[in-house]
């Protein structure tokens, strides 16, 4: 099972009549279950358009996106059904992707029914509970009855991941899925994602502008600039020996907290408010 883009391109017609905008130009990549492929780049680099092309949400205007060798644009109904179930999306901004008037349980249960994963109230609820437990929204019964507004940002992001994994996808396309989260929550969601690879063999296309995170979790990295993939390789190659000047400028711009100093003469832990 493999999701791949082969010289895929997307042109948007310009409203001002000033020639088309080439959002993605000849992008080629492939991802299989168990793999972690990151696409990095800044706003306007075309990385989100490429994500939507991989999900079949934006049709390609040149080249192709294929799933198991079949062009997304030429799939018949049953092929499309398998694709929609096997490749899931987790997008940024959970508040925009969740219906505020549906409980978490209802939102996930709806998808379970739609894809015929389970029938009957109890069976559906069991599937929902399993997905919520997998993303550590536990005990699941507590969270299933909540509305999105009753959850924190990190919890909402985990609901979106639960909604994606309830269909037992092979591949998840995540577009800035953790960028807006606090460090601790971000670390938790990333660990969960790695955990799903270990337990269920999920593969990821992980789109972000957050380079330190990519360095930590990705095996393969593609760098996009102005619609083109300008560099690709293993995480070590791209981070330790970047070849393209754009990659180097991205790496140079990252602000990273210095590593912890050695613990000699460490101050005692305090639980009281501490001023010095």
């Amino acid at each position, binding site marked *: 099972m493999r999701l791949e883009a082969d010289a895929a391109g997307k042109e948007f017609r310009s409203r001002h009549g000033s020639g088309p905008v080439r959002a993605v130009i000849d992008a080629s990549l492939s991802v299989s279950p168990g793999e972690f492929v990151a696409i990095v780049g800044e706003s306007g680099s075309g990385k989100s358009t490429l994500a939507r092309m991989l999900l079949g949400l934006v049709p390609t205007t040149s080249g192709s996106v294929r799933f198991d060798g079949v062009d997304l644009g030429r799939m018949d109904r049953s092929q499309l059904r398998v694709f929609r179930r096997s490749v899931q999306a987790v997008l940024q901004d959970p508040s925009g992707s969740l219906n505020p008037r549906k409980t978490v349980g209802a939102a996930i249960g709806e998808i379970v029914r739609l894809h015929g994963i389970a029938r009957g109230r109890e069976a559906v609820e069991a599937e929902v509970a399993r997905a919520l437990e997998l993303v550590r929204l536990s005990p699941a019964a507590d969270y299933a009855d909540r509305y999105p507004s009753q959850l924190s940002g990190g919890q909402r992001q985990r609901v979106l991941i639960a909604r994606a994994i309830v269909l037992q996808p092979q591949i998840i396309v995540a577009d800035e899925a953790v960028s807006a989260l*606090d460090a601790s*929550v971000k670390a938790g969601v990333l*660990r969960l994602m790695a955990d799903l690879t270990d337990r269920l063999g999920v593969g990821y296309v992980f789109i972000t502008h957050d380079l330190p995170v990519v360095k930590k979790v990705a095996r393969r990295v593609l760098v996009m600039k102005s619609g083109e993939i300008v560099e690709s390789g293993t995480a070590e190659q791209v981070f330790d020996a970047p070849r393209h000047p754009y990659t180097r400028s991205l790496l140079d711009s990252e602000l990273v*907290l210095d590593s912890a100093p050695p613990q000699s003469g460490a101050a*005692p*832990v*305090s639980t009281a*408010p*501490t*001023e010095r």
Partner: protein
Amino acid sequence: MSTATGPAVSTDRVTADRAERDAPPLVSVAGLAVALPTGPRTEVQAVRSVGLEVHRGERVGIVGESGSGKSVTGRAIAGLLPGTPRVRVEGSIRIDGREMVGAPPRAWDAVRSRTVGMIFQDPLTFLNPVMKVGAQVREAIAPARRTGRRAASDPAVLATLEQAGLEDAARIAQRFPHELSGGMRQRVLIAIAIAKQPDLIIADEPTTALDATIQRRVLATLDETVARLGTSLVLISHDLAVVASMTDRIYVMYAGRVVESGATRDVLERPRHVYTRALLRSVRSLTDAGEELWSITPDVRRGIDEAVAGGEGHRAT
């Protein structure tokens, strides 16, 4: 637990801080508590117990996770909390020696027009979409300092835009906000904030929405601008690396309280409070090679909550 005095840190920076502290602070907040309405009959205690000081020319960071109360604290100091009686503010906020909690709206207007400027994360919600950038900067400039008839030809407007790192100011003054890139819009906010020549700029996640390369440049602009004008800076962010690169002192907030404060390097290199340690561990786990990804689990959080509740009233000096 006694944590009365920190280890002696013999850097010039700290010595200078000590000297500055003898002068009366520009901002002095004590026992601040803010409750915000969340519904017709419900409210949330966004800030429970915050004390902090900002001296003239000083750069202070406030860090903490979403919901820690850091933004509400910043808005309280800028007098930008919603003006309904259901917003309850207790404690003391002294700005330039004057007590502002309970002060009349006119007193706050004076603070906002002369003493404190604010920069927000999202310029598009702050800027007027149907007004040219130059005119918006001009509005912030005191009438006496305005010279030209039109914003785009007013030297005061152009100089302000240039100070905020916007070259080609004459052209940018003619633009509408949506015609500018994210980094340029954020610089326009800096321009509007410094146009009043305030004593203090409060920047709340000023670069969080920007790409790293643009963030670098906007932070450099902010850095140069406050240095040149001698403005004090309060930088609020969940991004410890940003705060570490910009500030002298830091306050760490958790659940509406300041749990630790001190010289930025000191606090980040030798954190003492259990929460600060947990926060730093999770941040470093995202970037340090060889560190396993680490998040604050519900168990750890319970421990922090207990520690914070137990530590109440034991404030060290």
